[in-house]
């Protein structure tokens, strides 16, 4: 069900990508479909990305949120740099993937990641929180 507020709000723009050589793409494809089904705009950057390529695309495309699908441990290497680069342009970062444990989630949030979704995450939870992150970012942008 779409509320009136949702219907008149600009579409949430989300960039979906994967780090480095992590190639298990099934979840990234599924999440991109979930977001599109919910009316969001998805920029599917896909596999083989680095913090610089992701941040560059995020800035060019003026996205509201960056979502990284993680199915290898490479995120541990790339997250700090990506948090730093996205911080400069004020875009929140969310991570999802079965390799992300609850301990990881705590550490990643402490390191500046906005949301962390392990494999039990509910679709409704993801959609609601992405919308919240997007409107928070837009509110901040307007103040600038």
């Amino acid at each position, binding site marked *: 069900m779409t509320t009136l507020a949702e219907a008149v709000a600009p579409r949430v723009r989300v960039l979906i990508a994967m780090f480095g050589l992590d190639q*298990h793409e099934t979840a990234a494809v599924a999440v991109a479909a979930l977001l599109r089904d919910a009316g969001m705009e998805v920029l599917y950057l896909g596999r083989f990305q680095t913090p610089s390529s992701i941040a560059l695309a995020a800035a060019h495309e003026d996205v509201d949120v960056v979502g990284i699908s993680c199915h290898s441990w490479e995120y541990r290497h790339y997250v700090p740099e990506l948090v730093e680069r996205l911080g400069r342009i004020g875009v929140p970062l969310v991570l999802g993937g079965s*390799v992300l444990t609850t301990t990881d989630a705590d550490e990643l949030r402490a390191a500046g990641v906005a949301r962390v979704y392990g*494999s039990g995450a509910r679709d409704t939870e993801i959609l609601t929180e992405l919308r919240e992150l997007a409107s928070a970012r837009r509110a901040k942008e307007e103040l600038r």
Partner: protein
Amino acid sequence: MSERRFQRAEDVELDYGRDLGDPGSFPFTRGRHVSGRSASSWIQRELSGIGSPQESNRQFCQLIAHGAHGLDVIGDTPTMGLVDADHPLAAPAVGSSGVSLSRLADFRALYDGLPLEEISVSHSLPGAFGIAAYYLCAAERGLDCSKLRGSLLQAPLYTEDCAYATHLPAALRMRLTCDSIAFATARMPRYHSFIEDTYFISDGGLDAVEEMAFGFVEVRAVVRRLLARGLAIDSFAPRIGLLVNCRMSLFEEIAKVRATRRIFARMMRDEFGARDPRSQSAIVAVHTSGLTLTAQQPANNIVRGAVQALAMAMAGVQAMEISTFDEAFRTPSPEAHLVALRTQQILALETGVADVIDPLGGSYYIEALTSGIEAKILDMIARIEATGDALELEERGYFRRVIDAAARRYAREVAAGTRPVVGLNVHALPPEQDTLLRAAAERRDEPSCQRADELRAFRRTRDQRRVADALRELRRAAGEPDRDLMPPLCAALDAGGTLGELAGVMREGYGQEYDPFRQVTSPLAADNAA
């Protein structure tokens, strides 16, 4: 199939001799052997490979000590993608999801001390490269290569779309597949150089029919090309095998294996003219589904693995690997390996399932299901082939679209709860209670950082002129479509070329960039400038 929850004799239209036959006889629906493998049953093995080749070798020895009959080696993500361990993108991934292999000496260390003439080594490694390295290592040791067993997965059509992209052009991938099969047929006649891997193409969400249709489309595409080169069908077909998936729907999976054997037999005999019964009888191995396993309540995955393994034992597969309880988090830990291997051993030694062949044959239900799935697979193969040549379909993204649609379909079913997954969308536990085996499942290994340093040191000390000459020759051969790539590929490996270099110069031979990630330059860059 009817809405009744049971089948009657009239639901099954079967002629025993025509559609089933005894085990070991055409159309091999009931299996390829008359006697099976006695009490030792199928080849029991587990997916392995971690860190350096030396560390993986120790892991292999441990598995053999625990009673594994065979090995199943997988490369880490850089190796699978033909990216060397010292590439800038490789560092965070080296050795953490498989073994890191960049040069011939790595393969030598991997196989060190293993009885290659006795044990079968299955390889999930980039096709032609794995075959070349295995052959060179065995030949160096003075082994009789005609006795070498083992196998290698080839997926020229699907590898780029299903987690193991090599960034080689499709035509080159197909050429390497055909060249390496021809090479192995001549030099390692007992080695299965063409395992059609329907596991990894389907574990993103393809169903059993889509899985086997895709598999047969690829088998047929490769076989037609080998025949067009003048190879006799009975020279290579006995060494074709299939590595299939097994999900939770156990009767469907059993029926799928039986249907696959019947389709394979009729296709080989009637369409491709195979006369040797070994060419007609499909060799089927299984890797149980990782997609069906959950991060929640990891101990439940042990139960899933056991059910899937029992199904495949009843289906009469030749070899098996069970996806382990820590699948959601990592490639198997030693603890997970042991549980999976013990699961196979319990089935083989305690249940009696290995004492009888095709125990479900003749069941109205199983036979109706087998015929139904067979018809659907055949129909889908025909529809795909009517759409176009498989290699062109791949280049147009046809398969990728089906694979993506399947991933979306699966995710929607799980989210909607129409596909029950215990512990995930039904009978979930709060995280604080979900502790059984959690610590073991979530344990991590650090990337093998010293691998990059070792490789850099090796690059400085090798015979540069010999490497450059060999790479130059490989690049030239790649640019000439009629040349057999195996001799220059073997020579370049032997000269000290790395997998990344070999792949890179072949890309150059096809007019593409040396490094798909544009981070390292070709060792032949000086030639290009000249």
